[in-house]
């Protein structure tokens, strides 16, 4: 399971974000991107010491300032579900997309060596660019 995939699944769920400086933000994740930048709504910000609080209607947090995020447990079930669904759909379309690393690519064949990883992976890695 990819961390960013879990995060993407956590959209619309309440999350807790702790920043490197110790502040925490509790709110509903509206969106996140591949840099882990997150957009939260109905946020409660807590100071590092936990003694001051702010209510903020929405906030945009830069990914590289995040220490960690807490996501609700149910998101993990959801991400498994979505993974499963995607894997079912996958073979037809997703493989063709990864430039040159489709079915005929390295490591995908029956005797493919150690490289190349799981068959499904090449396509997604490329798709991000």
């Amino acid at each position, binding site marked *: 399971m990819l961390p960013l995939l879990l995060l993407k699944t956590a959209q619309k769920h309440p999350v807790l974000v702790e920043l490197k400086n110790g502040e925490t933000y509790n709110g509903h994740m509206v969106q*996140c991107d591949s840099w882990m930048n997150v*957009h939260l709504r109905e946020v409660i910000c807590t100071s590092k010491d936990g003694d001051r609080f*702010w*209510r903020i209607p929405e906030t945009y947090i830069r990914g590289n*300032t995040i220490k960690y995020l807490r996501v609700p447990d149910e998101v993990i079930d959801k991400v498994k579900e979505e993974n499963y669904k995607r894997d079912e759909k996958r073979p037809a379309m997703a493989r063709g997309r990864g430039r040159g690393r489709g079915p005929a690519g390295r490591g995908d064949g029956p005797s493919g060596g150690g490289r190349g990883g799981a068959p499904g992976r090449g396509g*997604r890695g490329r798709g991000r660019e």
Partner: protein
Amino acid sequence: MSRKENALDLAKFIDKGVRVKLSGGREVEGILKGYDQLLNLVLDETVEYLRDKEDMLRITNETRPLGLVVCRGTAVMMVSPTAGTEELAQNPFMQTDGA
């Protein structure tokens, strides 16, 4: 998965007051005049919220005027609208506990 899509949607904050936290601990508030995809910001009528001398992590209500500034994107940690933001008198998480 999410490609180049920015979670960023600052268009709606243009010409509105925004609060910006910068890495290193400074906090400024100003009117958002412009931005780019690197999160560089142009703020007008900016004020900096000064920090407590003893505890540099603690923001006070003292301000110092900065005027028109460009915030470098790499230093921006957090952006939120000024409108609707308020400091709470008591711990909002305690309330849910007590109820």
